[in-house]
């Protein structure tokens, strides 16, 4: 196949599918609830025992206390990603906190928190 036609097909195909998915509402983020957050955590870490969860007001992140320490679970597109809170830094942002993991495959999680939540979450995220 001529390279220019292949290029048009690939670029056009990616752009068209992206537009179609976005316009049909497929960019919505997963929403965590007090019921689903522990189940989602156990999906990622089946050996853990969840003690309690604190859900962010927007439902896109939750702090999870487990017998193996604290962890963070957050919306990742229509799904979730979770990490134990080890080997990370955090930075305050205008809308909350950005957690930077020292992990090339999971560089950061952006948390949208109001003022009250922000203080509570920072306290909870401090290493014991």
């Amino acid at each position: 196949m001529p390279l220019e036609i292949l290029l048009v097909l690939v670029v056009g195909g990616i752009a068209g599918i992206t537009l179609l998915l976005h316009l049909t509402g497929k960019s919505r983020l997963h929403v965590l609830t007090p019921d689903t957050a522990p189940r989602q955590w156990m999906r990622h870490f089946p050996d853990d025992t969840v003690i309690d969860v604190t859900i962010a007001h927007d439902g896109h992140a939750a702090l999870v206390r487990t017998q193996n320490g604290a962890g963070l679970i957050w919306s990742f597109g229509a799904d979730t990603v979770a990490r134990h809170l080890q080997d990370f830094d955090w930075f305050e942002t205008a809308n909350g906190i950005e957690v930077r993991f020292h992990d090339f495959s999971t560089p950061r999680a952006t948390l949208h928190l109001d003022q009250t939540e922000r203080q509570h979450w920072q306290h909870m995220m401090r290493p014991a």
Partner: protein
Amino acid sequence: MTDQVSFPDAVQWAVPFFIAAILAEFLWIAVKGKGGRYETRDAVTSLIMGAGNIASGFLLGFIAYAFFMWLWQITPLDLGTSIPVIILCFVLDDLRYYWVHRFGHRIRWVWASHVNHHSSQHYNLTTALRQTWTYTFTFMMVVRAPLILLGFHPAMVLFVGGLNLIYQFWIHTEAIGKMPRWFEAVMNTPSHHRAHHGRNARYLDCNYAGVFIIWDKMFGTFVPEQENDRVDYGLVHNIGTFNPLRVAFHEWVGIWHDATQPGLTLRQRLAYCFAPPGYSHDGSRDNSEQIKAKHLARHPEDRGTPGFEQVDKILPKGQAEQA
């Protein structure tokens, strides 16, 4: 030796079909309200990985091709390009695919290339295109050497390899449940390949087939999809990025960090490169056998069911229960 043999690049010619099939699957899910999920950034990442795979073929494909042509020069055998020879080549290349794919899950160096294909938590036709950019660096092209030395022309070997990949495209879907029984018995199908993409303990390291599922049945790696254990797609430790560069290279970076940490023996450094994924020198990670054993400790009722038959042979019962 016949040098002037040419076959079309089947994968490139299949690109319009890929796009049309993705649109058809999306519409099917939208109309039926079942049969899979699409998410914008996940799908875009998969499509960009597919485009990058074609680009890496343009940039690095000459390395494998030069190696194959060198083998072709030294072999005294030439089976020609008749239809029966092409069919035989297709079947033998599928056996080659089975082993390369199995190595891809059992040797971390090869897994570093293949992992990106499993990095989506979705399973739809775009997932099929989430392909590696770094296959050349695995040196798995050597597994094709016997085919060329047997007298199959390199262009034919690459052609049937392309057909193999095109076959595997359509099995990346939840829109198809089960195919007819005879087909499920012989061929790789959406059901068999869904199990392969599972991160559930049961489905780890199973169903490596490309086209013919018989290889898994022959070599003891077949696990049928279970109605009572819905497949959870993705990686044991799912990645948290849609950045294609991070998707493509994250396991290579992981190998580098692990193998270069201070205080390790040479054996430990090599194990971080070539042992099965999940190896750690201090026992801080689990490989697939240990994950299965821990699952059985939590769910003893699964002992002996598909996907767990081998655990008791690898880890004695008491050890599995303590895991």
